């Protein structure tokens, strides 16, 4: 039945091509770099075409659903299927596009890395998992791909596994997201047991028509939100995402900003009716996402690693999306604002990361102060595109971010309590500030940035320099490790690869790296104007779009306020080059220490998991259980030894004893007669 239906065939191809690419590369071709790359590219290009084909030609007003039995036990039935509706098709397009662009970009970025083949295998695994996640029809199937995405993330973060911090970050990411997924899984178990179906469409319609008991809706929504918190890095388990920047930069762009972390928000939109049916759940979401937004924006203000800045920015924007969704859920709005922001964010954040990747690749450092002093602004294309992306991030007209932020703030404005709106605006202000802090530092480098250099906090990934260029002034080499991010750049420089592009820079940017930048910049520019059509696509009709000028003005002024402050602090000639926050050293230190969240979790892990449970159980195992058994064994041996003292080898005593007993027993027996 499958092969004749082109839509189904497309879905199947989408899932199985990357899968077979992964298997092929991992088993056979991982030693052959070019071949592996080719396989992986083929396996990602076809889904890309399918995605755009679906987007433009397929009518998904009525969701297209395919279901096959995957596992049929008694009560547990897991179908394998595809659900194509506007929500999934749009995400499908986003994922396929960015995934493809990143694969192209990685040709340049990862060129010459000894693990090139493995890298592409892992990317294929990610593509498989993410695409499967997006178009899956059942929640359990979604969960499976969700876990696979986590696996891919683990493998890619720890890609440079020789480095302790990388492998540690990979582990952290996997375990922390798993921590949230446990909640997700429990939610699914509850749904299975008390509702009976995990089909997304069924669950949503049941929530809409109140077929589900309210307690179940709230419980399962909250539990599922645990998973979302893990994957989308919401407070308090956001700590893995900044660390995940240990992975190669294209991976950060693909997984840890544009697509994978957005999977949480995607799930929130997927189950929007379910969540919207429970005011409690939505309030929790709103609170948590607001905390996340503020927390990560403030940390982003003080980070010195360019990837850290964008990482915290990602966390805050994810919080922003969740805010939009929850506000919409509480105020009977639509899922559009949050989802729209997801879309635009995917474009401009991927762009930010890829641009940063170019700088990192070029300068062999993650520290944007060093990049600035070494003439980062001379790389024209990346500099231009990163500025565009930062403008979008800050929410400046006419870039995409402006429209989507506007939509979310609109949703927040519908809430009866205006505090959320104020907090959202404050978040937007901070966002603009930290984004332009980076941009201004890069654009207008100063001679010396001593403060942030000498005070790199222990957890930030302090730049290490092994590059051919000498260390910049004031740069302290405080990390013994060779930063692997520097490696590709280094080799790239030596091999002289990347010639033949129309660039006047001495080292230049290979076209495979600049092409994705340009494409994404294009998206960032045009996406804003697609708001209407996208809304129509997603919701079926375009809501009447009345512009609230008060909100518009305040939002834009917040953004410009942030930019202006950044200009004042970092950009203008003679700026002090210290953040305004340094006037409150306590607070600054608090932000630099990332609100002590890492410390908290480390403490939690060491004290409870390793310290109390693990140690106590191990002690119990060694001493009590094992000791008990050994004690039984030893007491057996001991009592045998004790008894053996009777064995004096004095035969006559033994005999005497025997005789006495026998005679005694005999007499006793005879007396009784």
């Amino acid at each position, binding site marked *: 039945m499958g092969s004749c239906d082109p839509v189904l065939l497309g879905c199947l191809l989408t899932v199985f091509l990357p899968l077979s690419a992964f298997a092929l590369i991992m088993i056979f071709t991982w030693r052959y770099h070019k071949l592996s790359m080719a396989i992986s590219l083929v396996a990602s290009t076809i889904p890309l075409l399918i995605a755009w084909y679906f987007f433009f030609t397929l009518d998904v007003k009525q969701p297209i659903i395919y279901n096959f039995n995957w596992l049929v036990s008694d009560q547990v039935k897991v179908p394998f299927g595809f659900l194509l509706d506007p929500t999934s098709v749009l995400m499908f397009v986003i994922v396929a596009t960015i995934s493809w662009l990143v694969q192209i970009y990685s040709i340049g970025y990862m060129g010459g890395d000894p693990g090139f083949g493995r890298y592409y295998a892992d990317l294929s695994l990610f593509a498989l998992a993410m695409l499967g996640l997006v178009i899956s029809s059942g929640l359990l199937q979604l969960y499976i791909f969700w876990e696979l995405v986590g696996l891919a993330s683990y493998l890619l973060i720890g890609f440079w596994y020789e480095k302790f911090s990388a492998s540690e970050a990979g582990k952290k990411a996997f375990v922390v997201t798993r921590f949230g997924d446990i909640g997700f899984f429990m939610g699914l178990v509850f749904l299975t047991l008390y509702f009976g179906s995990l089909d997304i469409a069924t669950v949503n319609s049941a929530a809409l028509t109140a077929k589900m008991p309210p307690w179940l809706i709230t419980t399962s929504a909250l539990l599922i939100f645990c998973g979302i918190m893990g994957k989308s890095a919401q407070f308090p388990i956001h700590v893995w995402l900044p660390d995940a920047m240990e992975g190669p930069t294209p991976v950060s762009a693909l997984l840890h900003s544009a697509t994978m972390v957005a999977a949480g928000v995607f799930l929130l939109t997927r189950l929007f009716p379910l969540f919207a049916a429970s005011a409690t759940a939505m309030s929790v979401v709103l609170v948590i996402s607001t905390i996340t937004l503020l927390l990560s924006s403030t940390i982003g203000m003080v980070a010195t690693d360019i990837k850290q800045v964008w990482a915290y920015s990602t966390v805050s924007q994810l919080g922003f999306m969740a805010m939009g969704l929850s506000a919409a859920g509480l105020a009977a709005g639509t899922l559009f604002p949050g989802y729209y922001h997801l879309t635009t964010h995917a474009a401009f954040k991927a762009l930010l990361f890829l641009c940063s990747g170019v700088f990192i690749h070029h300068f062999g450092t993650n520290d944007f102060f060093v990049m600035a002093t070494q003439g980062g602004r001379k790389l024209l294309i990346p500099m231009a595109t990163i500025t565009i992306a930062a403008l979008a991030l800050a929410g400046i007209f006419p870039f995409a971010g402006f429209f989507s932020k506007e939509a979310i703030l609109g949703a927040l404005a519908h809430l009866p309590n205006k505090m959320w709106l104020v907090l959202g605006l404050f978040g937007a202000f901070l966002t603009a500030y930290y984004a332009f802090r980076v941009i201004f530092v890069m654009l207008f480098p100063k001679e010396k940035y001593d403060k942030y250099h000498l005070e790199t906090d222990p957890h930030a990934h302090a730049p290490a320099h092994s590059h051919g260029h000498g260390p910049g002034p004031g740069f302290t080499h405080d990390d013994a490790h060779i930063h692997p991010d520097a490696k590709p750049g280094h080799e790239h420089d030596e091999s002289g690869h990347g010639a033949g592009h129309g660039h006047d820079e001495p080292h230049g940017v290979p076209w495979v790296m600049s092409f994705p930048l340009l494409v994404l910049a294009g998206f960032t520019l045009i996406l804003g104007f697609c708001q209407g059509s996208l809304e129509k696509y997603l919701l079926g009709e375009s809501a009447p779009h009345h512009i609230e000028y008060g909100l518009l003005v305040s939002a834009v002024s917040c953004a410009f306020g942030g930019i202006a402050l950044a200009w004042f602090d970092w950009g203008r000639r003679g700026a002090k080059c210290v953040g305004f926050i340094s006037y409150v050293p306590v607070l600054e230190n608090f932000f630099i220490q990332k609100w002590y969240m890492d410390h908290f979790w480390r403490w939690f892990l060491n004290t409870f998991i390793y310290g109390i449970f693990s140690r106590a159980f191990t002690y119990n195992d060694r001493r009590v259980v094992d000791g008990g058994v050994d004690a039984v064994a030893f007491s057996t041996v001991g009592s045998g030894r004790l008894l053996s003292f009777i064995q004096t080898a004095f035969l*006559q*005593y033994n005999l*005497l004893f025997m*005789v*006495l007993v*026998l*005679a*005694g027993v*005999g*007499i006793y027996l*005879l*007396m009784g*007669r």
Partner: protein
Amino acid sequence: MNFLSGLFTPQGVASAAFVLVMAITILGALIAVAARNIFHNVLGLALSLMGVAGLFLYLNSPFVALMEILIYVGAICIAICFAIMLSEPLYLPKPPRNRLKMLGAVAGAGLTFVFLCLLIRKTQWTPAVERSTDWSITTLGHYLLTNYALIFEVISLLLLVAMLGSIVIARGGRGSS
């Protein structure tokens, strides 16, 4: 004077002789275990065995009595004598007796004695209904080679094995010459 007159009847003589035999047996046995000189023990044993042989005469078995003297007194006691000569010299000073051990032994023996006495007293000894009266040595020999031939064979085998075994043990294993 029933007692004295009775003493000189055939039964009386037989009884008196029987008492004498019993006395010899017990006296010999006592010497065999109580004397401190090992050689006296052997002589006591011989005496006791002679007494036992006398008892066998009273039990209508002159052949067995003869055998008793022949084998026990004639063979075993002599063998023991050799063993004494081959082992510890007699002139060595003897360690003092262990009172406690002797007390224990007396208790053990006494208790066993009591037990066996009780056993004898409490048992109803009934003779077989039909009893043959054929006590001749011929019959004994006949039975030994027909009905009880197995015992005969086993005795032979046992003696052979014992002989070989004692040679092997006494010559001190494979190593010594």
